């Protein structure tokens, strides 16, 4: 009888537990134990997020699918959303920055040569004047892009191009070959030069900066640009200054005596001994031998490429 009574009791308790199980699954996940609940409340009171990385990931996944309530435990504080400044920084990544990265060299263009003889000179006029000079030198509209900052300075940046050591661009289409591949030998002299001394390629980017905030030496302060970033400037820039409908302040801003226009030169080199192309301004130690024979004068680069915007002058 005792045995029978025990069996009966056991089956009844089993049935009760089976009834309780679905009720638990319908609630918001397994209930936290008492100790967990205590820790959670303690952390919440201290304003510390008590979320493990896996929970945070599941939260992100649920958030992206628009179903946060089911995937994320309701009792836990939600992980902090990055502040808007971080988001905007990510958006700005890879843009031609102001202040510009460290240049190889620069030249100050003559103010008088940029003025509009027929009326007031606007930023748009200066931009178009530079663009026209670039197009004459073989830079099609796809080979330059606009960047601007705070509506009082802008830059026209050219695409990465391959050049000779003297500053002359390579013949097309090799000129616009932005790949990191090294050249291959086609002649005997090239073969022996590459065999014994290695292959070398020079790259160039021009940036024409109209600004009132900066002066020549300030362009030598920052760190030199990364090759990949400079290569990507074309994808990040705009095809025209402003919105293109004349409504933006940057287009109509007056180009007066406060402003200067600088031609900035960025040179990069790739060689057998380097892992990837680098700015010539970031070479160190024996790598500096790669600069030997390289023309680094902005004025002669402009002249060799037939970019004729006007004269240059020494900065006072």
């Amino acid at each position, binding site marked *: 009888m005792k045995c029978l009574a025990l069996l009966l009791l056991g089956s009844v308790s089993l049935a009760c537990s089976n009834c309780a199980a679905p009720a638990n699954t319908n609630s918001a996940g397994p209930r936290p134990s008492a100790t967990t609940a205590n820790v959670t409340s303690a952390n919440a009171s201290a304003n510390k997020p008590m979320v493990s990385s896996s929970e945070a990931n599941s939260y992100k996944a649920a958030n992206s699918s628009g179903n946060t309530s089911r995937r994320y435990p309701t009792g836990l504080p939600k992980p902090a959303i990055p502040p808007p400044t971080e988001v905007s920084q990510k958006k700005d990544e890879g843009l031609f920055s102001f202040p510009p990265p460290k240049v190889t060299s620069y030249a100050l263009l003559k103010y008088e040569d940029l003025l509009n003889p027929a009326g007031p000179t606007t930023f748009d006029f200066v931009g178009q004047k530079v663009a026209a000079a670039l197009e004459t030198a073989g830079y099609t509209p796809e080979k330059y892009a606009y960047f601007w900052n705070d509506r009082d300075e802008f830059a026209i940046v050219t695409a990465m191009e391959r050049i000779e050591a003297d500053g002359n661009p390579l013949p097309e289409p090799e000129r616009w070959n932005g790949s990191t591949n090294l050249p291959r030998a086609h002649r005997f002299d090239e073969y022996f030069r590459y065999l*014994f001394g290695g292959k070398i390629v020079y790259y160039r980017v021009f940036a024409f900066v109209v600004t009132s905030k900066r002066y020549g030496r300030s362009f030598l302060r920052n760190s030199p640009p990364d090759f990949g970033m400079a290569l990507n400037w074309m994808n990040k820039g705009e095809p025209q200054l402003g919105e293109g409908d004349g409504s933006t302040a940057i287009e109509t801003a007056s180009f007066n005596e406060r402003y200067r226009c600088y031609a900035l030169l960025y040179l990069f080199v790739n060689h057998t001994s380097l892992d990837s192309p680098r700015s010539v301004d970031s070479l160190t130690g*024996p790598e500096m031998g790669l600069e030997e024979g390289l023309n680094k004068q902005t004025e002669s680069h402009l002249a060799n490429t037939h970019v004729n915007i006007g004269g240059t002058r020494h900065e006072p």
Partner: protein
Amino acid sequence: MSLESYRKWLIGIWSAGFLIPFVLILIQFGNGKYGGKFAEAFGWLTALTLPTILLMIGVMVANPSAASLQGELPEPTPDSEKSNAELAADREAALKSSHETFIFRLAVGASLAYLIIVNFVFFLEPFSNAKPQDLMRDSKIFLAVFDSIISLLIGYFFGKK
């Protein structure tokens, strides 16, 4: 050809296959071709050739063949003066010799192919877009497999007493 000659031939081929790119690497280093990565190129060449060469030289020094110890072998006796047993032994030796010649040719052919590929990595690199370091890395796995097959063939001559 005697076993000694086979060994000398193989050592000669491998030494030439190593020394030519070795001298080239030294010239390239002098011209700054590899910059700070000289050890990478030198390490690649030595890892693929030097162990085999040193093994061959080591075995030859430690275990010289009978011919090199005794000088020239004695003049063989004419067939008319030999007994049946001697003639049978000669036939067996001739068979063995032709087998050895075949293995030797195979070893020489494989060694030449292997060393030509090793040398091509240096001498044909100017015709490619890639850097020599990339070519070395890409060819290393393939050459390592090839090297083990060659070691087997070479081991036949250098493992023998």
